[in-house]
């Protein structure tokens, strides 16, 4: 039981580390929160909505995302898209990620 809990916590930490990169990589086009959640889920990354929405707000505050409210299907939705600053940062993050993957593959081989 304790082992499972530890495993869950470590997996959660690992996922948390990649969510920013995953979100930025998927926001080249406009997405609202729920559509982004589904987009990530369809690609195999399950993100809790309680993690995603505050993260979107934080990334917007940091200037990496931009958002706009649009009225669609009689329902207002907040659409997020990567900002110019986010676009500058993304390749660097990707490079960093590739380096981490390469290092970890060597370590775990």
């Amino acid at each position, binding site marked *: 039981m304790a082992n499972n809990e530890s495993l869950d916590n470590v997996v959660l930490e690992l996922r948390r580390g990649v969510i920013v990169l995953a979100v930025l990589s998927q926001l080249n086009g406009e997405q609202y*929160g*729920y559509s982004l959640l589904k987009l990530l889920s369809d690609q195999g990354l399950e993100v809790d909505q*309680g993690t995603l*929405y505050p993260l979107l707000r934080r990334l917007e505050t940091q200037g990496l995302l931009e958002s706009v409210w649009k009225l669609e299907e009689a*329902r*207002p*939705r*907040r659409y997020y898209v990567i900002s110019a600053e986010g676009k500058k940062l993304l390749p660097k993050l990707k490079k960093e990620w590739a380096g981490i993957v390469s290092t970890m593959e060597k370590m775990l081989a």
Partner: protein
Amino acid sequence: MKLIDRYIAEVGKRLSLVKGRADIEKELRSTLEDMLEDRAQKAGKSADEAREIELLKEYGTPDQVAATYDPHPYLIGPRMYPFFIKILQIVFFAIAIAFAVTTGIEIVTQAPTLAGREFVRAIGHGLGGIISAAVAAFGNIVLIFAILERVVPNKEFKLDDEKEWDPASLMKEPEPTEVKPWEAILSIVFIFIALSIFNFNSQILGIYTFADDQWISVPVLSDAFFRWLPLMNIAWVAEIILYGLLLRSGRWDLPTRLVSIGIKIFQVVIAYLLFIGPSIFAVTTESLSLGGHLDPEAVKILGAIAQHGSPILMGFIIFVTIIDIIKTVYKLITQRSNS
């Protein structure tokens, strides 16, 4: 949608201190409605109340949801914590010193009557004072830091390990803007001693005479002094915070110089109020003569000093503080023109 409305209202209640509450509520509503519609479509059924209940149960309690949006899920965060601990250590040290001094004075002045139980009682009284002052100081410091945590922007307050450190700085000559840690600590300690004595142990401020196997004390300060004590406390607490900030940054800069000037101007105002008011000294020729233990000549001199000394002392304090303000303004101007 009644349940979703109520759910959002409950989450909103818990976000009253969070910036952008209306925006969060609007987005939460949009998300929940999207999710509900999506689930209903997949199940080929309508979005009824049972489905709402199921969705909200999965989404989490209003407390859990609100907590994810709280940018400060702690009272004092990691940025402020090391500074908080440093200030706490200094303040506790100052309290211990202040009470050691005041208890020492109390024991010495009452020594002939203090024996056995009374002596232990005096020590116990001192220790009790330390504990209650420490608890009160702890509460005040936590409150100040909890406010700072929420009002000081992150970029203004970085962790020590986020700052670039150059080992070569160890070889540098001290700069005029540099603040020596011991100076700041000493200032904080003395201010706490002043706060402690004037607020909690003002009875020790007296002229003592020993006669008939006991100490007789005549209070030195009048009500005219204690009337303005709350203002003095504000100035002292502001100075403690200022020295705490200087201790952390290690140097004077524009905001700290301006705060320092502001505090000094405030002190001049207090001194002026004391200057134009009645004498701050309670000592009079009559009160000194009451016990009949003091030399009549000494009574005459002390009475005269007490009678005329108050405006002279206040005038002197105003003069010195204004000179100090001019010096600080001069430093501010020269440092800004050099930089």
